[in-house]
Each structure stands twice: as structure tokens, then as C-alpha cells.
């Protein structure tokens, strides 16, 4: 594929708001996971909640889009000069030539969960103030961001569970390559809701303590929330010295099971191979792998087989989900932005909360954050339904 530069990017998670807070937290190996309840939950788990989402107010003209997920999107757009960079790009190429492709798994479903508590006792009807299309619907977050940034180009949501916002990079690259647009806002926004908290609880996949990817004692995931965005444009002839670009996207399906990965990680390996192929790279060219690493016993084991099978045991790897929690549909974009930070600032984030790497896993798991000159990195995202996506990013 033709490389695309990340002309601007930003991310907001439980680690903090914007690039600088996130970089600092990752280099300190900090974690934003905390034992607390969300809304009315009663679950014995830790969550990665973004501070201050409830206090965010959307612009009055867009008030109909108000829900936790779009508040998180609004918060995420407000940092690192991202909205200004998009406005400038739209000024150069035209608002109708900038696409918007965002990933989410549950969008604003919390709004519907709350509305179901306020049904009319006689008719069962949902309250009059509930706006399904602009809050709950899977497209809502993309529609909101498109309106918020005054863009007029093609747009859609990709919703493939936990690979959603990795796959949007592929959609944007293909639309740019076909000449239908000149630039794209990509990203992922997923926010805490009862469906995912109680859903993963039903699968007995929630860890009691903060999740510990790759640890011998790992026993499940911690759920987080995030907003991560990037502005993609064709790579400039003379990119800025600290420029980061997308070099490859690889996708595959497990064709195995709805909620468990292929035990040998076959689908994951196909996706990583395809991403390397798209970037015209060999495994040895990759200096760091940001693992999907959810910290469930079977997910990490399958991913380890896939990684070691393709890269051997020397390539440094870590999962940042011990720091941010698993942000589900936002994880792909969030971890692509973490990869971009690692490239720009020359470091490998150590896996927070992991103490004793599982001796049965053979990938080179990095525990402590350290400096590293990186040229090309890979980021993995896998999801329910057996959907896999790997991205290759690099210094331009």
C-alpha cells in the first residue's frame, strides 16, 4: 500500500488526556486501572474509566447527539490541536474530500440501557427524550464527529468488536487510494456501559485485580474506555523529522469460534503476515509489537503462538492493556497511537501490572519501559467473531 502520514493524532484514556500525559504515563509504566463501580454496577473488577466524561458538554447545535460515547469523542477531539489540524486539511482539500471512518463496538448503547430503566409503566414505551439514531446507533459516533469537525466526505463506522478501530485504517487507505477522498479522520471511541461489563462477566473473563497480560497468573481482562483519532494523508515528499506513517494493514478471519480465538493463532498470524506484506517488510524489520494481549489465558496463549511462529522469540513485545484496560472497539486506534508515540519518542512501553511472565509463553515480553530506537512497529487487534487486524506503523 501507499504509506499514509499521521498528520495529527491524539488519544484520551484512563491514563490521561492527550499525547503528553499518555507518553509520560507509559514511560513511567503507570496504570489507570482502578477498583471502582461504573454507574450502578456491582462487579468485583477494576475498570479504566476516563475522568470527567460526565461533565463534558457538546456544543448546543449538536445537543441531540448527547450520550457518554459522544462526550468521550468530544473530549478526545479537544487535545493536541487535532480539530485544528483537521480544519486546516479540510481547508486545503475541501470538506467533501475528507472521509471519517471510526471504530466502535457499543457506540452509545448506554443511552438505551438507561432509557430501558425509564420505560412507561403502562405502555412499555421508551421516554420521549431518547434519540436512538444520534446516540445508540453504531454510526452515531461517526455521525457526531463528522458534524463536529464540519466534514462533508464519505463516512461510516466499522464495528467488528475489538478489531473495529484497527480496520478503519484499511478503509481510509483504500478510499484514498481509489481517489474518492484526499484525507481521512480515523479513530476509535468506545465507552463504558453495562452491556460489555456484564457481558464479559457472563463469559467469566473479567479479572478481579488489574489485568496482567502475559503473566503466569493472568486470569482475565479489565475493561477501559478511550477516544483515539488520527488524520491520515498521503505521505509528504519531505515529511517532518518526527513524522509517523501507516505502512501496512493486514486482515483475516479465524473461521473458528464466535468468542474464542483459534488455539494456534492461525488467523492472527495471517493478519500479521498480510500487514508485513502490505508494508513490503520482513519480520526482522519490526522493532516492537504492541500485542492485543487481553490477559485472558487462551487469548494470550494463541497470540503468543502466532507471534513466535512468525517473528521468533527475539522481537520485543508488550500489551498496554495493563495500563489502559481493554478499550474494545477503540483498542485498535488507541494502540496504533501508542505505537506512534513509541516511534516518535523512541521507547518501548513496559507491560504494566505484569510481574512474572508465563514461562509457557515464548514471545519476548518487555516488563519495564525503556528507550529504544524504533523504525517499524506492529500493532495487533483481534475480536469476537474471529476478526483480526494488524497495522504496521513507522517513522517516515
Amino acid at each position, binding site marked *: 500500500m501507499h504509506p499514509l502520514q499521521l498528520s495529527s493524532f491524539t488519544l484520551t484514556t484512563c491514563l490521561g488526556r492527550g499525547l503528553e500525559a499518555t507518553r509520560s504515563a507509559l514511560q513511567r509504566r503507570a496504570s489507570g486501572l482502578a477498583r471502582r463501580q461504573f454507574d450502578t454496577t456491582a462487579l468485583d473488577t477494576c475498570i479504566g474509566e476516563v475522568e470527567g466524561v460526565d461533565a463534558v458538554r457538546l456544543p448546543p447545535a449538536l445537543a441531540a447527539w448527547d450520550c457518554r460515547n459522544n462526550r468521550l469523542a468530544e473530549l478526545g477531539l479537544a487535545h493536541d490541536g487535532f480539530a485544528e489540524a483537521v480544519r486546516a486539511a479540510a481547508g486545503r482539500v475541501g470538506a*467533501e474530500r475528507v472521509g471519517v471512518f471510526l471504530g466502535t463496538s457499543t457506540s452509545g*448503547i448506554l443511552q*438505551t*440501557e438507561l432509557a*430501558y*430503566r425509564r420505560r412507561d409503566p403502562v405502555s*412499555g*414505551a*421508551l421516554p420521549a427524550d*431518547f434519540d*436512538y*439514531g444520534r446516540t445508540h*446507533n*453504531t*454510526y*452515531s459516533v*461517526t*455521525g457526531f464527529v463528522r458534524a463536529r469537525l464540519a466534514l*462533508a*466526505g*464519505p*463516512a*461510516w*463506522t*466499522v*464495528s*467488528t*468488536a475489538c478489531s473495529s478501530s484497527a480496520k478503519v485504517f*484499511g*478503509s481510509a487507505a*483504500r*478510499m484514498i*487510494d*481509489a*481517489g*474518492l477522498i484526499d484525507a481521512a479522520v480515523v479513530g476509535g471511541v468506545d465507552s463504558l456501559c*453495562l*452491556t460489555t461489563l*456484564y*457481558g464479559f*462477566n*457472563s*463469559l467469566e473473563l473479567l479479572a478481579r485485580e488489574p489485568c496482567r497480560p502475559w503473566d503466569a497468573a493472568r486470569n482475565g481482562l479489565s475493561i477501559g474506555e478511550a477516544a483515539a483519532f488520527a488524520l491520515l494523508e498521503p505521505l509528504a515528499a519531505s515529511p517532518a523529522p518526527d513524522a509517523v506513517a501507516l505502512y501496512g494493514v493486514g*486482515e*483475516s*478471519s*479465524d*473461521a*473458528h*469460534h*464466535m*468468542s474464542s480465538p483459534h488455539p494456534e493463532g492461525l*488467523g492472527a498470524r*495471517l493478519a500479521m503476515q*498480510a500487514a508485513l506484506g502490505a508494508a513490503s517488510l520482513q519480520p526482522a524489520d519490526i522493532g516492537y509489537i504492541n500485542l492485543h494481549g487481553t490477559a485472558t489465558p487462551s487469548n494470550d496463549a494463541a497470540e503468543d503462538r502466532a507471534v513466535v511462529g512468525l517473528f521468533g522469540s527475539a522481537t520485543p513485545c508488550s500489551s498496554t492493556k495493563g495500563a489502559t484496560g481493554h478499550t474494545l472497539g477503540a483498542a485498535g486506534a488507541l494502540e496504533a497511537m501508542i505505537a506512534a508515540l513509541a516511534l516518535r519518542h523512541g521507547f518501548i512501553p513496559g507491560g504494566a501490572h505484569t510481574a512474572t511472565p508465563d514461562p509457557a509463553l515464548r514471545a519476548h515480553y518487555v516488563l519495564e519501559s525503556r528507550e529504544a530506537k524504533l523504525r517499524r512497529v506492529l500493532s495487533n487487534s483481534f*475480536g*469476537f*467473531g*474471529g*476478526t483480526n487486524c494488524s497495522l504496521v506503523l513507522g517513522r517516515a
Partner: protein
Amino acid sequence: MSRLAAAIEGVALLGPGLPGWAAARAVLTGAQPYAHAPTVVPVATLLPPNERRRAGLAVKIALAVGWGALTESARDASALETVFTSSSADGDTCHAICEQLAGSERLISPTRFHNSVHNAPSGYWSIATRCMAPSTSVCGYDASFGAGLLEACTLVHARGAPVLLIAYDAPYPEPLLSKRPVPDAFGVALLLSPQAGAGVLARLELTLIGDSPEPLADGDLESLRRSVPTARSLPLLSLLARGARGTAAIEYLDGLHIAATVAPCA
């Protein structure tokens, strides 16, 4: 403005009063009047018996039209990349979860939870067809068909390989139905490939336009087009049914629509 080209190798359609592509063609050409009848969704024979019984309407209609578009094709489903697009995937499952979460016993069934993801039909399809090729699932609310068509055609362009587009909608039960009044299930699948050759029904060329589409001449079909996101495909399907050269406008987002020019192959 750039043009995006693809060839159409297969079509499938299931909707209210439109029981399959062969039967629907007469209605879409105007040879027969539209007669309303509930959508008939066949059993998901692609799935193993256990899952067949449990499959919801969304999975059933997606799999039925997907398989339908392949019946007259020599394409191997196990190697075929797919694009699924829907406004809301499995509405029954979503309702059941929200109802459960509003009560005091918040026990969700694990199966129900994994069936609640937007890409559940894609997961069932890839398992049933043993297909490890990529698959994506997109959503554009009312613009879902246009979103899926663009995603599928840009994939054909990027990969130089065939892609199966599966667009479907399944209505929510009450109380969500009143907030999102999609009246019945509707599914359309298009088997798209890079170039015109043997087995190609028509060549397709897409451009983005600003003008809003004209209403369909048939009032019943127009009301269907306006009430079901996937039925925004009807202007394109009508052209294909007539076997005529022409351009159909597909309603997409506010102020941005898709002109689909069709040239039939003999």
C-alpha cells in the same frame, strides 16, 4: 471526481413482497404490481443444526442473501472476502440484553453477549464457509447500504479480487421499534469482481454526487426505500432487473450521494 469500477457477478434479494431475486425482478421491472407480504427468511442451512435453531433473524437473512448471490457463480466461498453492512445487526438480542440490564438480575447469557456484536453474522458466515479471508462489518445508520457499497468496491479496487457485499436489516422489537421503525427484514447481496468477464451480469461504476435521488416511480417501492436502510439499494436493483444501461442514484449521507451507472453484459 473519481470513478470506482466493479463488475456484478451475482445478486440476491429478500424483502417484504420481494421473495428472492428471480421473483422480485418482475416487480422491479414493473411487469407485476408490488404486493405486500411479510419477508420470508429461510432456515440457515449453512449453520450446524445447533446453531441453526438458535440463529436470529439478522444472521439468517444475512447468510441467506450471501449464499444466494453465490448460487450461480463458480466463486469459492471459502476464499471470498466479505463486507457486511447493517443499520443495527441483531435487534432482538440487543432488546433482550437491555431488558435484562434494566432489571435487578443482571445475568446475560454468554451466547447472547457474543451474538450482540455488530459483526456476529460475519463471524457465523466465516465459520460456516471456513473462510479465513478478511471480512468487515460497517454501519452508516440510514446510509448503511451506500457505506457498504463503497467499502466493497474500494476493496475490489485495492485487492483486484472478488468481494461479496451483504447488506441486511432486521427490525427491533418494541419498544425500540417505535424509535427505529424499520418495518421488516430486508437483505441484498452483490457479488462484485474487478473486471467484466465470463459470468458477469453488469458493469458498475460509482461516483459521489451532491444531488438527492429522485423518488422511485412505484409508490410502494418508494415507501419501502424510505423505510428500510438496505432498501436504498432499490434504484440500483431496478436497473439491474431491467437489464438496461442507466444511472441510479443511491441515497447516502446528507448532501452526498452515490451515482451508480450500470452497463449490462449480454
